């Protein structure tokens, strides 16, 4: 029989306000196996843990039940506490009487009754607990960063500077992400490329960083410390080592002049040839052939680039290559894009070329952009005199089909930035911004926005735009509301800029599934704890960086990238990781060798071997299941599938769960 100690936590008033803690102690004191029961204000505090240690020593406790908050919060804490007192940490069970009891029930009598039942179930389980020992698994000292934008770049640099090997996988031909498309960044108005390109170059030259560009992650298997990842290196059709980046091919490609392939980097405002580098400062500075549009790949004719290349670097026969690499940790930094605006017909985005998105405006204002930095209307190339900015297009929107429910966070700031930059260059321009609220939650952010109003006289109007109508004379008629002055406004505009909502990069769902990383309904990756663990996924070994986790601006992205890097370094610094001891176990006397368990195991942790078995005095060789404890993750699929009941799961055994059911249904 076990000697179990039960501790019931008040958690201040979190539990004690709805659960009669003293009564729970009274009622569980006489449960089978219990030799000690007590309550305390805050069990997780140092004083609380001291009480546990004292009780273990004084009463010679062999098992512990803590009735407190969720085991997901403090199971680790209490296990560590037990270990300090010399008790095996797996002889500890936590009954969740906070998140699943006191916080959701209002009637004190009901809540107390339920708390007692949950405590009884935990006590019944601990009676059957066995002292488990954690195993060890090695750690591959290499990290993978998926995504080569500012988040991925910063994370990789921090990890590499600490002395560990990092690989970046980026699906575009160049790293740099969205930030490479921007012109200037708020609130300092520095040139985005000027601060980004040095980091891009550093990444390329760093001895610890390997870049896989124009590549995608295809398959992930394994677990923390030992991930096996298949990376597909898509065929660029260029031999990397021979290309000098001279650019001859790009200038001579016939499709560059005929001009019908829209440039993704320039958001469709300009065209590009079939063999191209996304932008001049691309890293690596090696072009790629767009096989879908290239004449040679479509018809077998042309081949101009290959003939003209001075280094003979073009290889039309190049194939995709798949490499398999081992990693200890994976960071997801897949970034964002803006939503599709098809559902917002009222803004005439698809009808008029003079209605553009903010990213398109960034390209127009960028000196390396489609218009060389001259702000002009895409319809007639005249400079716009009246510009209207519309905020919250698709953000804060309750309707799922149209937009996103969240606030995209960055748009109020970038619109103020755009307005000020335009006014700076062309002071005669009239700029009006239609907003619902102006959100400026950062250091120097509100001052930045007020400069736009007070110094540059940008006209901020609280209200929204109902309709943008292209007029026969080529201008746009904007029908909007001014809520503070109580007027409906009909104004002429030469250009309308939409601050469209951001959404996580569409490819992220596939990646999250591959990594079994949690993702929410808006496609943002979920963190392990919203406040205290913002850069880790609940899945061990997966970390989050940048917009993939939630809307944020560049300063926050860089902070988070650093945080993710630190977590990765903390993991890679270990020589071995403790493995979960709650693994499956086969009773070889009962096993009939059917292989059902091996077939359902997602980790291939079960093999069948011929083993000597001693059954009722008879020594035999039988083919039975053997579980590899390093690979087993403790899911229990084999246990439920086993027809003979030979397979059981330590820590969640059949008898343990059955006894919990019994205790609840008593």
């Amino acid at each position, binding site marked *: 029989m076990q000697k179990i100690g039960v501790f019931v936590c008040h958690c201040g008033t979190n539990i004690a306000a709805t659960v009669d803690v003293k009564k729970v102690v009274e009622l569980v004191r006489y449960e089978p196996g219990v030799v000690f029961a007590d309550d305390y204000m805050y069990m997780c505090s140092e004083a609380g843990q001291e009480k546990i240690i004292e009780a273990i020593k004084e009463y010679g406790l062999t098992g512990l039940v803590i009735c407190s908050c969720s085991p997901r919060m403090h199971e680790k804490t209490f296990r560590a506490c037990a270990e300090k007192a010399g008790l095996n940490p797996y002889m500890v069970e936590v009954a969740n009487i906070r998140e699943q009891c006191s916080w959701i029930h209002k009637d004190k009598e009901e809540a107390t009754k339920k708390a007692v039942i949950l405590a009884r179930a935990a006590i019944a389980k601990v009676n059957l607990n066995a002292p488990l020992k954690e195993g060890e698994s090695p750690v591959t000292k290499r990290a993978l960063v998926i995504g080569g934008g500012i988040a991925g770049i910063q994370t990789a640099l921090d990890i590499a500077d600490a002395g560990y090997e990092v690989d970046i996988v980026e699906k575009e031909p160049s790293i740099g992400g969205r930030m490479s498309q921007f012109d200037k960044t708020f609130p300092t108005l520095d040139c985005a490329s000027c601060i980004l390109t040095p980091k891009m170059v550093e990444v390329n030259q760093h001895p610890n960083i390997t870049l896989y560009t124009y590549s995608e992650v295809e398959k992930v298997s394994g677990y923390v410390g030992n991930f096996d990842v298949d990376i597909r290196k898509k065929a660029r059709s260029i031999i990397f080592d021979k290309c000098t980046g001279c650019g001859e091919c790009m200038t001579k490609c016939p499709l560059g002049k005929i001009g019908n392939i829209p440039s993704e980097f320039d958001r469709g405002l300009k065209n590009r040839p079939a063999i191209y580098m996304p932008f001049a400062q691309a890293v690596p500075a090696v072009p790629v052939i767009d096989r879908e549009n290239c004449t040679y790949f479509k018809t077998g004719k042309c081949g101009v680039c290959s003939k003209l290349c001075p280094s003979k670097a073009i290889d039309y026969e190049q194939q995709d290559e798949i490499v398999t690499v081992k990693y200890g940790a994976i960071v997801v930094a897949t970034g964002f894009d803006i939503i599709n605006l098809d559902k917002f017909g009222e803004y005439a985005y698809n009808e008029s070329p003079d209605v553009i998105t903010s990213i398109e405006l960034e390209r127009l204002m960028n000196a390396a952009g489609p218009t060389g930095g001259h702000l002009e209307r895409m319809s007639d190339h005249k400079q716009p005199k009246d510009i209207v900015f519309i905020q919250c297009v698709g953000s*804060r929107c309750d309707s799922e089909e149209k937009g996103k429910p969240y606030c995209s966070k960055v748009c109020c700031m970038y619109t103020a930035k755009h307005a000020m930059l335009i006014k700076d260059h062309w002071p005669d321009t009239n700029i009006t911004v239609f907003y619902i609220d102006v959100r400026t939650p950062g250091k120097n952010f509100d001052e930045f926005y007020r400069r736009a109003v007070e110094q540059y006289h940008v006209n901020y109007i609280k209200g929204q735009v109902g309709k943008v109508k292209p007029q026969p004379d080529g201008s746009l008629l904007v029908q909007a*509301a001014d809520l503070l002055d109580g007027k409906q406004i009909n104004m002429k505009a030469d250009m309308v800029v939409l601050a469209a909502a951001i959404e996580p990069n569409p490819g992220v769902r596939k990646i999250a599934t591959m990594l079994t990383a949690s993702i929410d309904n808006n496609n943002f990756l979920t963190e392990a704890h919203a406040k205290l663990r913002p850069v880790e996924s609940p899945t061990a070994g997966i970390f989050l960086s940048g917009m993939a986790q939630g809307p944020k601006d560049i300063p926050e992205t860089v902070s988070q990238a650093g945080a993710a890097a630190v977590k990765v370094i903390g993991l890679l610094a270990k020589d071995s990781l403790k493995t979960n001891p709650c693994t499956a176990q086969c009773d070889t006397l009962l096993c009939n060798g059917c292989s059902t368990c091996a077939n359902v195991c997602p980790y291939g942790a079960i093999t069948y071997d011929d083993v000597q078995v001693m059954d009722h005095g008879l020594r035999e060789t039988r083919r039975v299941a053997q579980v590899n404890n390093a690979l087993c993750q403790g899911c229990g699929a084999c246990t439920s599938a086993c027809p003979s009941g030979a397979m059981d799961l330590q820590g969640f055994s059949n008898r343990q769960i059955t006894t919990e059911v019994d205790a609840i249904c008593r």
Partner: protein
Amino acid sequence: MTQLEKNIEAIKEMSGSDPYKCMRCGKCTASCPAYSEMDIKPHQFASYIIRGDFEELIESKAAWKCLSCFACIERCPRDVQPGKLVDATRQIVARSRGGDYLQPEEVPGLLAEDLPQQLLVSAFRRYRR
């Protein structure tokens, strides 16, 4: 529930929309073709209802000048459907006062060639019960 909450619940049920969701963005007002006739603007409908100023809303010109064109409903990002809220408010007050104002027999006499169907339907909704 207080009487105010009960009335708001009734409006929620009748219109199928929740006035609390309104974030006062003004897109409805921006889209309203009848705006110039309105003393209380579409973006104010939700706040009037939440405060319980039903009578004021009904006494206003706005509630009756609404064309039921549903532009505000189409454009509202929060699915508040101001047009339907006004409709529901009219119905609550009209029901409490009783009486029909538009008989089916009167309709042929009021018809004109270019009258849109929608106008007939909304007239019935407004002037019956």
